[in-house]
């Protein structure tokens, strides 16, 4: 077992973990933060997307020990309790959520894009979200939602 210290959504967290624990399993299983889901578990679907030091990554392909000392942001930390981030609001307004399984990952990838590029083109949005799969195939409304945040 190894000691893992890191910051999650602004709070210091320390835990004893097995080195084979992925960041996704640590967040979802150990800490019970169920927003970060494992879809394919192979880095293809993007459901497990979180931000590490401000950059979108696939938490299912990262050993939790690799982010020791770093700052992780998950869907739970995007906005204070009872409030929503503008990206989350845009998803609701545009009906960009169907079954909801991909939504957390979609929103984290969108958030990372908008922080880097506040006014993305449709091409930029589609490229940034190409690693996030929506099996309900609701891509059009998702892209529309992200673009609407950029326009604001």
């Amino acid at each position, binding site marked *: 077992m*190894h000691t893992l210290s890191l910051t999650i959504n602004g709070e210091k967290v320390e835990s004893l973990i*097995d*080195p*084979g624990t*992925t960041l996704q399993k640590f967040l979802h299983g150990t800490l019970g933060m169920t927003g970060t889901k494992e879809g394919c*578990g*192979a*880095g*293809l679907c*993007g459901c497990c*997307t979180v931000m*590490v030091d401000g*950059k*979108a*990554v*696939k938490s299912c*392909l*990262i*050993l939790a*020990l*690799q982010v020791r000392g770093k700052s992780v942001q998950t869907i739970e930390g995007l906005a204070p309790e009872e409030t929503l981030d503008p990206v989350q609001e845009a998803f609701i307004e545009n009906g960009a959520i169907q079954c909801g399984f991909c939504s957390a990952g979609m929103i984290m*990838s969108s958030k*990372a*894009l908008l922080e880097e590029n506040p006014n993305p083109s449709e091409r930029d949005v589609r*490229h*940034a979200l*190409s*690693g*996030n799969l929506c099996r309900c195939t609701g891509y059009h409304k998702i892209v529309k939602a992200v673009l609407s945040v950029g326009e604001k």
Partner: protein
Amino acid sequence: MNTFEYMPAKTVKEACDLLSKYGEEAKILGGGQSLVNLMKQDFVSPSYIIDIKEISDLDYIRYDEKDGLRIGALTTHRSLETSTVVQDKFFMLAEMEHTLASVAVRNWGTLGGNLAHADPASDLAPTLMALGAEVEVTGSKAKRVISLDDFFIGYFETALQPDELLTEIHVPNSGQGGGIYSKFAQRATDLAVVSVATHLIFDPNNSDLCKDVRIVMGSVGPTPLRAKRGEDLLKGQTIDATLIEEAARLSAEDAQPTTDINGSEEYKREIVHVLVRRSIKEAKARASAQ
């Protein structure tokens, strides 16, 4: 995932010492975008993981007019993609990165890891080979430089010795050249079904003549393959449509694709033919525009 002992290394020396101690029982972990995936599926079960991701002095991109480009092994794909000097001087490298997996994978995955993993479907390997790149590897006793042409020796196999670590990628300055990486995949973020990287340099004294050309085919053999007969046909010649067609035909013959879920052997040869033709045309246009 099987259990393993996790050992973070802070320096290259520390990593090499651990490698010489544990040899083939150990695996180097960079970004792990390939390795963690294989471990989760129990395709590989190392007893020791040597995590080198925190060795910060292996994360750099340096350019020098004479020497070319030097890239630390732990530089991420995303850093290569967004580097202004790479976009400016080695456009085909930055452009290739745009087709490699997704932004989130590129944010964490490292260039050295991609090469050492030696997946024949790598996007990076054929592109670097087309640019005549070499790698520096560091062992517990000495360093050596290996041309990428000799680095890949089989499916997921490299010339790295058990105590060696890939530490740097060197891309020579290609001067008045132009190139392109062409990839055929099912979806935007998939591995290549077939890929072709072509880089062409015109004779500085006679801009009609092709001075040198490298055509590298990916995903159609155990390693990225140089299409040598196609290259030889073009060297020293004025490249026209007939010559391009013949080079593409020879390259398709020399590819070694196998039938799998992505397509039959014949189908892949046909794609090689098309991609080689297109990539020579585009490389030629880009080299002329220099």
